[in-house]
């Protein structure tokens, strides 16, 4: 399959992975190869099987079939060797609520078998890095969702795992915390760590990932770099709102490729949403002296992606299920 040199550069290799819950086929033959030191994003709607995948790859639950190698080690043969290399932040909080933040981190340091002084120093560093120094003395049960999420990730980082699984790391975070989390993830990768993350946001995958895969109904329906995927998605457009039919008609004549909606006096002009194309569009409107009431830029989102690859938007599918 791979040569000796390229195998050492593959952090996670998955072939034919399958998992069912009763009649519910959750993973139906997944193949994946994730290079060392990169960020891989698994994208999918609710119930797609993202968490199941993370749980299998992180040795929490068993698969029904297929092979997984983590850093060259067979998952089922050497689970403890794999566990030594990985860190996991699951979708649901995995902190000890009765312990303080500091005690939680010290617990991790002890379980990672760090020397006492080294463990205590690591705890102090992580508390500072995650802005938890003050809260560190309080029981985790009193933490807000965002603080708990930060503590959760800090606990994962004790012991410097080489491969980190993050199941929806930014779910429930405010925009500022989300950006902080993104920066932390980028810093980790810069130090050579491999990241496997799941998300429901195309934007997040776009911001972070070197490689994206779309999971749907137990299969990977698309894979590639963010740019490769976006090139395949035609969902981006600029939406123009007019005061009356007259404005709409003259604009529709100016933009040949647009789609018009006569009921709402809106016009959708295909666009990549960039500043350059926006300026070109405004110039064109100016030249034709067309008055626009309002304008909004619509970039491709997960819905467009699923629309493109499955022919139906993800929200409809969610309700059908």
């Amino acid at each position, binding site marked *: 399959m791979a040569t000796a040199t390229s195998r050492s550069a593959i952090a996670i290799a998955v072939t034919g992975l399958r*998992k069912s819950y009763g009649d519910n086929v959750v993973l139906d033959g997944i193949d994946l190869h994730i290079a060392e030191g990169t960020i891989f994003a698994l994208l999918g709607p609710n119930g797609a099987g993202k968490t199941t995948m993370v749980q299998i790859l992180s040795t929490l639950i068993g698969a029904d079939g297929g092979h997984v190698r983590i850093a060259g080690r067979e998952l089922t043969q050497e689970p403890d060797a794999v566990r030594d290399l990985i860190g996991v932040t*699951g979708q649901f909080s995995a*902190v000890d609520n009765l312990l303080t933040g500091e005690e939680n981190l010290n617990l991790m340091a002890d379980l990672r078998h760090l020397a006492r002084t080294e463990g205590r120093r690591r705890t102090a560093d992580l508390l500072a890095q995650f802005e938890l120094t003050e809260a560190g003395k309080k029981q985790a049960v009193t933490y807000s969702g965002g603080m708990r999420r930060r503590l959760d990730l800090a606990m994962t980082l004790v012991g410097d795992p080489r491969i980190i699984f993050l199941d929806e790391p930014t779910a429930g975070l405010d925009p500022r915390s989300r950006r902080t989390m993104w920066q932390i993830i980028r810093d980790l990768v810069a130090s050579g760590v491999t990241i496997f993350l799941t998300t429901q946001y195309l934007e997040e995958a776009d911001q972070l990932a070197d490689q994206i895969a779309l999971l749907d109904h137990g299969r990977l329906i698309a894979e590639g770099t963010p740019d490769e995927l976006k090139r395949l998605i035609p969902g981006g457009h600029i939406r123009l709102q007019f005061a009356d039919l007259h404005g709409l008609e003259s604009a529709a004549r100016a933009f040949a490729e647009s789609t018009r909606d006569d009921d709402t006096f809106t016009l959708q002009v295909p666009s990549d949403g960039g500043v350059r194309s926006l300026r070109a569009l405004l110039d064109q409107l100016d030249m034709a002296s067309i008055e626009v009431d309002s304008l909004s830029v619509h970039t491709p989102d997960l819905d467009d992606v699923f629309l493109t690859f499955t022919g139906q938007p993800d929200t409809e599918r969610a309700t059908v299920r």
Partner: protein
Amino acid sequence: MSTLTYAVRDSKTMLRRNLIHMLRYPIALMLVGIPVILLLLFVYVFGGTLGAGLGGVSGGRAEYANYVLPGILLITVACAAQGTAISVAMDMTEGIIARFRTMAIFRPSVLTGHVLSSMIQTMLGLAVVIGVGLLVGFRPTANAIEWVAATGVLAMITLAVIWLSVACGLVTKSVETASNLPMPLILLPFLGSGFVPTDSMPAAVRLFADYQPFTPVMETLRGLLLGTAIGNNAILAVAWCVVITLASYLWAKKLYNRDPSR
């Protein structure tokens, strides 16, 4: 480091975790109230009559306080078992257990942490009950060696019952059920020689009472603390404790190692 050093270190780490839990949420210690109330009830309300029925020289309440204490001690152990089952079941619903499962740690250490901290709580509870017993008329005749032996017997039955209750806490997904499973243990001292001698019972009950594990334990304790005849009860008590401990340990370990998705 070898596997054994890791096993010891991880167990110590988990014990520390459970001791902090104990200080912040002392379930097992709260359950000490029940045996203390039962002790007072049986000595002061029923003690006069039941004590007279024992047919000893001093008779009455004083004699009954001596007779009932070993049974109350085992009720203490049974109540602590309930606390252990509850705290294990509650712990298993916590997300941190999933985290432990993805870490390279000595697996049973999650359980040994619970067992050791429950042991400590139960032994403390037993000391409290014995203290109250002394206040209400319990007059042991034991010398230092007999006290050590009695402590050993109590530690053994506690270990056995606690491993059993750890398994009870793991076998069910609901905390409610977990708290009910060790309930029958509280009845065992009543259906044994804990409160009245077994020869006063009807034949069928007596058969059960004579052959259930708590009876030899209580008879051994009675012998060590009060100087009654022990006979082969000591060997039976030790054998029961070893069997229950081993079987429960293996069962609990198997339950914990189940794939959580199946």
